[in-house]
């Protein structure tokens, strides 16, 4: 990337921070399922996916600075940029599955748009993460398609799509201070966020079409109201999530594994 354009670099760093915060929050939320998954294989799957997402967060924070822990845990609530979808606890497994499907479908699109980034270190992380993402998506899609073949699955899961999709659209929003045009012009990402969002929506549409369902999508451009997470406003769930993340650190700031 052209280092001579510092404001582009600054915007790219803001974007990476938001992506990292998404990964951190969803990774931490998925970790809740350790040992309480509905069946053993699912327990292992959610645990592994949680570790992968936290690993992606670490790799992204690592692009921004050397002190990854300080970036991940040491900021004030208003300095986080996570999409509110990722902060939801989802203690119901159906909720976790639908959120996981929406999120990992979105991530696959987002990483692909960054795989050839002009910020070469970001491109390398994106290619690496994309390879891990395929197994996440296969896991989510496989369970979803099987469950949507049953009446119980349809009645429990489909309403969640309408509940979560407006929130999920925030995954394709940038924090304030990022110029979308500059990120595109400089090749930090290779396709626009509205193209990415359209690609994601059509993948989601396809997944539920077999169940005769059509999610109600907010109009493009109408999601700015929901992009409050990107702007630094935390959802009601963030405080508890963050307290859990820093529990050991606040007991002993020098704790090491």
């Amino acid at each position: 990337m052209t280092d001579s354009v510092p404001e582009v670099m600054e915007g790219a760093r803001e974007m990476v921070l938001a992506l990292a915060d998404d990964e951190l929050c969803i990774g931490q939320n998925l970790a809740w399922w350790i040992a309480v998954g509905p069946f053993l294989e699912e327990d292992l799957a959610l645990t592994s996916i949680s570790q992968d997402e936290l690993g992606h967060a670490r790799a992204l924070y690592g692009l921004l600075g050397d002190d990854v822990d300080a970036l991940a845990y040491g900021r004030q609530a208003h300095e986080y940029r996570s999409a509110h979808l990722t902060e939801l606890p989802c203690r119901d497994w159906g909720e976790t599955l639908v959120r996981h499907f929406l999120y990992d479908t979105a991530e696959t699109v987002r990483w692909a748009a960054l795989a050839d980034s002009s910020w070469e270190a970001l491109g390398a992380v994106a290619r690496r993460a994309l390879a891990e993402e395929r197994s996440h998506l296969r896991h989510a899609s496989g369970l979803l398609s099987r469950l949507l073949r049953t009446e119980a699955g349809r009645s429990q899961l489909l309403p969640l799509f309408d509940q979560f999709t407006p929130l999920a659209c925030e995954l394709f929003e940038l924090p304030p201070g990022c110029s979308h045009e500059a990120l595109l012009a400089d090749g930090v990402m290779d396709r626009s966020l509205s193209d990415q969002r359209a690609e994601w929506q059509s993948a989601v549409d396809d997944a539920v079409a077999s169940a005769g369902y059509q999610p109600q999508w907010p109009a493009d451009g109408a999601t700015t109201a929901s992009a409050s997470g990107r702007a630094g406003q935390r959802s009601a769930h963030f405080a508890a999530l963050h307290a859990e993340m820093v529990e050991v650190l606040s007991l002993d700031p020098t704790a090491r594994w």
Partner: protein
Amino acid sequence: MSRAVPAGVVAAVRRSVSQVCDPEYPEVTIAELGILEGVSSSDCGSTVRIELVPTMLGCPALDVIARDVTDAARRACAGADVSIEVTFVDDPVWTPDRIAPSAVGFLAREYSVAVRSRSAAASCPICGNDALEHRSDFGPTPCRSVEWCPSCRNPIEVVGRVDLPAAMGAAPASPAAMGAAQASPALA
């Protein structure tokens, strides 16, 4: 003026860190597992740079491996006035193909763990049957999936998820990206 690191010191560090073992398989070295990418003297000043390739970005053993490598490097250059830099690189990408054949045999024999690679299908470490059935991408650690051996009727842990090696191989890194591979994250 930068002082170059004596070649003997670099070689000693390379020997020493090559012997560092994986926390999960304490008899197998990180060199055999393909986690150790390279040991070199840094261009700028008296630094020995050690590059490691993470098996998975979220591998919880990364910090332990980095610490053990740092300790081994420090031991090897005791007395020499050099600093040690240990970094995880995103390029190249680790795949099970990086595991040495000797380690593949050892893992099968001692841990009943199979290895999936592009060059060879995973075969059952217990009975040798090479028609394993895929059960789950997710096993006891993020880098292991679970298969089923219909012949000896055992669940089998396999290093590597089904599409990891192919998917990674299909993602070409530009030469520029290879040259600019940055550490992520930097670990002291």
